[in-house]
């Protein structure tokens, strides 16, 4: 059990700057993100795209912004828990007990949700019947490739993950690759390799088809695919793999008893607290009259939420407003020498 002043959910720019503000006012925090890297949407969706509306920064990319924010909070040595997701919250005597997917536990008076538009999860097959086999024979990522040895594997997708796995698994499994169009978005070398493997019949390549149904009786037996004009085919399958990239889902946040407005969480604009005491929401995931989904708004929201956290983390102390230019306490926290 890790005891801390604040658990921040989401390591995007808003979560990072909130961490900075917590550090400045002398609070500790732990940051959880389900991506394997720091930066949130800025890193996952548009690392190379220039952003033009960060105050006093005429132009920077998502990656540069992230790197600068990481640099800015370095003095505080906060812990990041990446590739993990906050799963469960329980309130005990005004403390939140937080559990993650990987089994980490935190005790904290404050939680700041800086979750953007939710957590990134693999996009799944739209077919209802696939749910029954989810995690068993219908998979969206591969942990142990030995399970596919000598099996029939049907892979869906046209990007690098789909192509790379089709190539890799074709050594020891009977692979069918299905993609909705003739072109692939994977690396040219992989596309070339796939065409070779298809020409020499090592893999079965089917384009302009998508999934219609999966069939089986407890165990997966086959997958039915359809073309846009309605033709269908049935392919024998022990495993079906889907590689359609990531989508953003609200995930477990929806189950914590917070008021929700579509995919956003209403907050007050004094300290960005939600309807639950000690749970704050900032950045794209929060909503209030006049809300702008700008990074700069997320910074402001994080600064105020940090002060909101102070009240619960240090109930017997009075928060004093200080400037970083003048305060020696803050300079100590930042480790700057005069």
């Amino acid at each position, binding site marked *: 059990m890790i005891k801390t002043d604040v658990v921040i959910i989401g390591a995007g720019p808003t979560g990072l700057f909130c961490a900075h503000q917590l550090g400045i006012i002398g609070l500790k925090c732990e940051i959880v993100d389900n991506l394997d890297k720091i930066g949130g949407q800025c890193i996952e*969706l548009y690392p190379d795209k220039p952003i033009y509306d960060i105050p006093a920064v005429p132009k920077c990319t998502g990656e540069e912004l992230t790197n600068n924010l990481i640099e800015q909070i370095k003095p505080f040595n906060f812990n990041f828990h990446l590739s993990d997701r906050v799963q469960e919250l329980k309130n005990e005597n005004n403390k939140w007990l937080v559990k993650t997917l990987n089994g980490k536990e935190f005790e904290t008076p404050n939680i700041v949700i800086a979750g953007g538009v939710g957590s990134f999860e693999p996009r799944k097959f739209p077919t209802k019947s696939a749910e029954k086999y989810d995690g068993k024979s219908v998979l969206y990522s591969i942990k142990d490739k030995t399970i596919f040895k000598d099996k029939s594997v049907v892979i869906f997708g046209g990007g690098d993950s789909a192509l790379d796995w089709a190539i890799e698994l074709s050594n020891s499994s009977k692979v069918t690759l299905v993609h909705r169009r003739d072109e692939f978005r994977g690396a040219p070398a992989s596309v070339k390799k796939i065409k070779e493997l298809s020409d020499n019949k090592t893999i079965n390549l089917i384009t302009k088809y998508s999934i219609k149904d999966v069939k089986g009786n407890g165990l997966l037996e086959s997958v039915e695919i359809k073309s846009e004009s309605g033709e269908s085919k049935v392919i024998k399958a022990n495993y079906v793999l889907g590689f359609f*990239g990531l989508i953003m889902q609200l995930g477990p946040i929806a189950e914590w008893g917070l008021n929700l407005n579509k995919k956003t969480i209403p907050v007050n604009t004094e300290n960005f607290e939600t309807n639950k005491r000690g749970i704050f929401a900032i950045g794209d995931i929060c909503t209030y009259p006049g809300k702008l989904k700008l990074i700069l708004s997320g910074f402001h929201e994080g600064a105020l939420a940090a002060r909101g956290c102070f009240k619960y983390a240090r109930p017997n102390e009075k928060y004093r407003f200080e400037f970083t230019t003048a305060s020696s306490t803050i300079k100590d926290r930042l480790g700057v020498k005069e």
Partner: protein
Amino acid sequence: MAKIKYIEFNGTEHEADVANGLSVMEGAIQNDIPGIDADCGGGMSCATCHVYINDDEWFKKLPEKEMGEDDMLDQAFEPKSNSRLSCQLIISDDLDGLTVHMPEKQV
């Protein structure tokens, strides 16, 4: 300015006058028309503003897909050959009268 008709999956129709230079996606968001999520805000990074152009004549008349749009559409829900990302359809007078159909869902 162009009049754009948005038809939800359940058949509900919406019409909006959208100013030149905005995208079909922005036209929907600014007029509170449901069915287009636009999670990434128009960066061609998420495939949640996916629409179908059912009229073949219109489909051909639209600005051509840029590199990357088809790659993103691969990740959309039920993409078809008449799929477009509405964030990539920039309004001009030429688009007056365009009808877009929304998919059953965006993710």
